[in-house]
């Protein structure tokens, strides 16, 4: 379905967690929501902040901070939600801020440097060089994979 001029360019939705900008390809983003009422799920894996109701569909909320080995988001109700769809199920990524939507040329994408912390490196597929910042490209499949892990120790590993 790609348009002729988009052959070498893709659109990235950028967001921020703990000052670190990163992006997700726009195709996988379903919705961006502000503060939401999140219901906790007792006994759930630590990276799952709970679930929210998006127009009658139940969305599982993932705390990106926990996924990246940080302390959990303190007030999930106030954070931003980026809703993605994977195999027919809806998930939401809990992030601090949602930024711009960028059109990225393929030749501007570079591999992730070795020095990036393993937690970030394992979930990124590349880096976009912007004028004043570097944006990591996140792979949502990998994020969802590690979200199923049950303990904080497993996450850190």
């Amino acid at each position, binding site marked *: 379905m790609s348009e002729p001029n988009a052959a070498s360019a893709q659109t990235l939705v950028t967001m921020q967690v703990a000052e670190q900008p990163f992006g997700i390809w726009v195709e996988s983003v379903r919705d961006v929501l502000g503060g939401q*009422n999140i*219901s*906790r*799920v*007792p*006994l*759930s*894996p630590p990276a*799952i902040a*709970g*679930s*929210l*109701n998006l127009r*009658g569909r*139940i969305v*599982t909320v993932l705390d990106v901070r926990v996924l990246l080995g940080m302390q959990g988001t303190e007030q999930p109700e106030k954070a931003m939600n980026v809703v993605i769809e994977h*195999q027919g*199920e809806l*998930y939401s990524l809990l992030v601090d801020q949602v930024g711009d939507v960028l059109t990225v040329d393929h030749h501007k994408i570079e591999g992730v440097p070795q020095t990036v912390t393993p937690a970030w490196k394992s979930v990124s597929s590349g880096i976009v060089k912007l004028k004043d910042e570097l944006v990591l490209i996140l792979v949502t499949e990998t994020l*969802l994979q590690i*979200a*199923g892990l*049950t303990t904080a120790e497993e996450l850190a590993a």
Partner: protein
Amino acid sequence: MAMDECISEFLVEAAEALAGLDNDIVKLEGEPENAQLIGGIFRTFHTIKGTSGFLGLSHLGSVCHAGENALGKMREGSLHPSPQIISVILKCVDAIKGILTTIEATGDEGTLQHEALIAELNALHERPAAVEMMSADGDSAMLQALFDATPGPDLSDRKRSAAPSEEVRAPLALVQTAPPSESVKPSAAAPIEPSRDSAVVKEGGKEPVPTNHTIRVGIDLLEGLMTTVSELVLSRNQLLQLLRGETESPFAGPLQRLSMITSELQESVMKTRMQPIGNAWQALPRIIRDLGRELGKKIELVMDGAETELDRQVLELIKDPLTHMVRNAADHGLEMPDVRVAAGKSATGRVQLRAFHEGGHIVIQITDDGRGLDPAKIRRKAVDTGLATEAELVGMSDANLFRFILRPGFSTAAAVTAISGRGVGMDVVRTNIERIGGAIDIESQLNHGTVFTIKIPLTLAIVPALIVGCAGERFAIPQISVVELVRASRSGEHRIERICDSTVLRLRDRLLPLIDLRITLGLDSAVADEGERLIIVTQVGSWFFGIVVDRVHDTEEIVVKPVSPLLKSLTAYSGNTILGDGSICMIIDPNGLMSQLGRIETAAGRQPIEAASVDQEQETEASQQLVLVKCGSGLRKAIPLDQIARLEDFEVSNVRRSEDGRLLVPYRGSLMLLVPATPAVDLQESGRQPVLVFTANSGVADNAPAQTRHVGLLVDSIVDIISHTTRIDIVSDHPDVTGATIIDGEPTEIIDPANIIRRDLVGWPTISEVPMTIERIAA
């Protein structure tokens, strides 16, 4: 493209036609003279043959053709549908199904070879009629056929004038196919024929009608519709909740109407999901027939209530368990014909399926009139496989005993047959049925048969649930498993009490094990204990337990949605739902909670004893004689009387202490060992010492006479002998204790003397080498 569509449509239609075919053929075996039946089967073959020719499926066509020819001979009356021939026809149906499956999977007919079958079928109809028509009956049928053929045209002529024109074809067809049947009799009976014929005509004329009134709709579309309606119901609930605060709103009227329409819509959509349970039974007559032939049994399958409707999803889930249970009933339940006759029953065994609605449930009963379950056999097997100790089984009612057959690895069948007897089936059946919120009950009478009763909810999509609160969170508990609510407080009638690390509630003289949702779900326990809590008495199968929550908010009809794949591993939940206020709420799965409870109890390697149901069991359960004794300062103890040989008391001066500290007393000409019932008990200082005497058999050989020994159990005092329905409320981890219950309002532990004595005899030189068994002495 168009061709593909044609083929897929043909596949659906053929599958539908074939679904009923097995049953018709099996029915034909029972009524070989039923011309209508033969006609119907013939037409099905003919239609499939015709369409397959049109679609260029030549191989399928040739198989159908061979089958059709054989049926053609049957229709003419020159081939009698004997069981052997029926088997060949059934084989032909299987072959057709096989080819259709191949077409569906690969798009072409595949390379399956059916030459042998075709040859077999051809041999049937090419064989001279005389071979198949050996019986005098057959000859007379043929004569009658010839006789009937003559008045035929007259009848149809008369019909033509009497009946509307479009119905004419049917009587013609009837006359053509009718001869061997009794439905058209020689002309003497003609005057009464028209009415009977018209009934048949009506049925025949009805056939094309349904095609005008029904359409084929994809399941995806229906499921989508269902989801949308569920959302509509949720939105409606939300609106209603918003309106609750407003006293005079202009929205009230329209919303009321919207609400009603939504309910109607929901009901209609639910109806589209309903299917008669007969759909799940369709394969059974064939299975039973084949089973009967294979095992050499005569089996009659009776099906009542096939039209009873239930949700498609539930139907799919119970199909396999049902098939398995019917198979079991025929294989294990029914005896061989000679055994049946010897037992004074008819040689033909009967398996009955019954379905009916009861409340919001559908009840399915599978009844056989076979040998029934043997409680003694199950008892033995339960002990042999280590599922229970003898003491545990002593007071167990038959109903609870029968439930052992639902345990993994439990099969009392002496021989494993190809069909069943491996002991893996019934526990899978139970798991599947309990997974959808159903329960199985077993009743059985030795030599009279067994009844399995399955109770399942009509639908899984929308269920009434109790919304409860615990530590500030809300949860839904499906009402199907809720028995009652009990308020517990520190000072009130009901108190939560502790035994070791677990909490229990005294409820009408029973101890109810409790699961605290706060602890089980790891909720914030810092929330102040309000002193008053609610206990939701829950039933799963024949298990009862209480779920402790802070409060009950409401009851609500909830739409069950599956949990996210990331949360699938949490057994505590069966799904989640959106409440009327738009928030999300987890649905508690009592089964899952109970498995956590079960894990605690079975940690010591013991199987929990099933708690009996509150109301029914008290009457049905046989009461048992218990000896109440005092042992030290702990709980009062009880020992089943039927295990005790004698109650004695000995002069303390007669008791001697041996070198290694064991107590011995002369008894009936030899020395008897005395064992303290609990470590707290010791020989009394003076006076008389009460002792419970048990008979221990060394069991070297079955009839070795001299080996019977007595062993005495020391107790502080014998309090009473009472009659009590033994229900074990709490299973103990201690090997000497079977469990605890309430007797006359006082908590009492039932102890297992066999275990105590066995342990204390280890190392006793004369009898330690041989395994000891406690033998019961009839009172």
